[in-house]
């Protein structure tokens, strides 16, 4: 069976994995074989920058790569604000809205340096220097005494009229003074606007940040996106030349199709294709081109919120899946009732 998902103008074909022993007479020997997997599995890193990573997983099933993707979004832990204690807020933004905005600010904290909160613990023993990061925000807006008399620009008229994420100040507790001496907790992006003030208004609050996972609340997700797509395949079955070739080229994003010296269209880089199916709307290309996607070739794109490098998020997702399997393996099978 081919591992190409067919893409036609109104349908997709050959979509499900069939690499199971017993599926058909020629699927004998499709048993799981680690050595075979080691030979066929390929990983190709395209780039890893500070915030994003792009790499290909080749020779792996959808169910597995989908598990990695789901874990990156919902189960890799990170740190976010959980409780906001507001002492004073005379701004126009309501306490709960402000608290929500603060909660969504990604923080630069290595999650491995914190331990999990014990949910059952007594309220007063719950937060310790081991599991909680404390931030404070104290800001008051004042008039700028040196303002231009005929200016209407708030930046010129007022001081501190915009409250940014960078105004959240880290307050190390106990052993955190030493632990975070070289890498104090700061928001990953300093210029997230939290509130606007006018002279006489002020905000004073404290924030408790804890470890959590994305399935509990999206603010704990370490990625802004983690997605994959299948590698596009473009198969030109009959030569396309001349004026048609130019039109053919324009059916795809730039860089996908090129035209050689004989005036014939050829596939230069199918990876860049978005599989828009535009080419299938043109009658003159009927039967000349086949579109598809490789079912076992995943192009992953991970964008970190900034708390962790993107490659570390993927590492953790693989480890979490393995831990799930190993933990379940170690559990005795109980009997219902």
């Amino acid at each position, binding site marked *: 069976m081919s591992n190409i998902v067919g893409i036609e103008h109104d349908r997709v074909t050959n979509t499900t994995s069939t690499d199971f022993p017993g599926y058909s007479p020629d699927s004998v020997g499709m048993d799981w074989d680690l050595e075979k997997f080691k030979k066929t599995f390929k990983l190709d890193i*395209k780039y890893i920058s500070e915030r994003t990573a792009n790499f290909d997983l080749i020779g792996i099933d959808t169910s597995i790569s989908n598990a990695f993707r789901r874990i990156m979004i919902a189960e890799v832990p990170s740190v976010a604000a959980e409780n906001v204690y507001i002492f004073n807020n005379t701004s126009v933004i309501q306490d709960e809205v402000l608290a929500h905005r603060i909660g969504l600010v990604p923080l630069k904290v290595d999650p491995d340096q914190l331990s999990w909160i014990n949910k059952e613990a007594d309220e007063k023993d719950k937060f310790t220097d081991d599991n909680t990061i404390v931030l404070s925000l104290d800001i008051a807006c004042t008039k700028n005494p040196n303002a231009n008399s005929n200016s209407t620009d708030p930046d010129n008229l007022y001081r501190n009229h915009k409250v940014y994420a960078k105004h959240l100040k880290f307050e190390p507790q106990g052993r955190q003074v030493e632990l975070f001496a070289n890498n104090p907790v700061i928001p990953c992006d300093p210029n997230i606007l939290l509130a606007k003030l006018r002279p006489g208004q002020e905000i004073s609050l404290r924030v408790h940040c804890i470890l959590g996972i994305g399935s509990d609340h999206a603010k704990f997700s370490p990625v802004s996106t983690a997605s994959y797509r299948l590698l596009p395949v473009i198969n030109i079955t009959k030569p396309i030349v001349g004026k048609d070739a130019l039109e053919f080229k324009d059916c795809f994003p730039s860089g996908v199709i090129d035209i050689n010296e004989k005036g014939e269209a050829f596939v230069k880089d199918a990876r860049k294709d978005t599989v828009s199916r535009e080419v299938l709307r043109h009658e003159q290309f009927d039967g000349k081109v086949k579109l598809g996607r490789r079912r076992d070739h995943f192009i992953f794109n991970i964008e970190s919120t900034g708390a962790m490098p993107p490659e570390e998020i993927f590492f953790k997702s693989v480890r979490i899946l393995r831990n799930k*399997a190993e933990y*379940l393996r170690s559990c005795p099978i109980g009997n219902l009732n």
Partner: protein
Amino acid sequence: MSKPETEDIEMTDDNKIENVEGNGAENEEAETQVDRTKITLLPGATSDGFAASFQIIDEDHTLGNALRYMIMKNSDVEFCGYSIPHPSENKLNLRIQTYGGITAVDALHKGLDDLSDMCSHVEEVFSTQVAAKDYSTEEP
């Protein structure tokens, strides 16, 4: 199945070491920590053990679909399927039927072992390639 046996032996060895070093109470605590509610056998298992359904709690499609795939990659297994009976209950039902070569529990355990082997390999390949630094650090 020789692999689980060796693991069992290793487990008991660990317990012995703990017994020598720590006190008895600590060991008792470790035993009560064994999670007996994580996976249970559902009604509908055959008496020979070749077909059985399991209920796993606090798991979803993430593990369910990956594990189903791994179990189906076993030629002793005739059928494997999973379902989330209700989206607001964190339960996962898993059905395994074998041809009779191995029990459903063994098929489940083999699937879990294969899954962790595979993850180990993916992690190894990824870490060697990240360490090799043979890639661009700029987003094109």
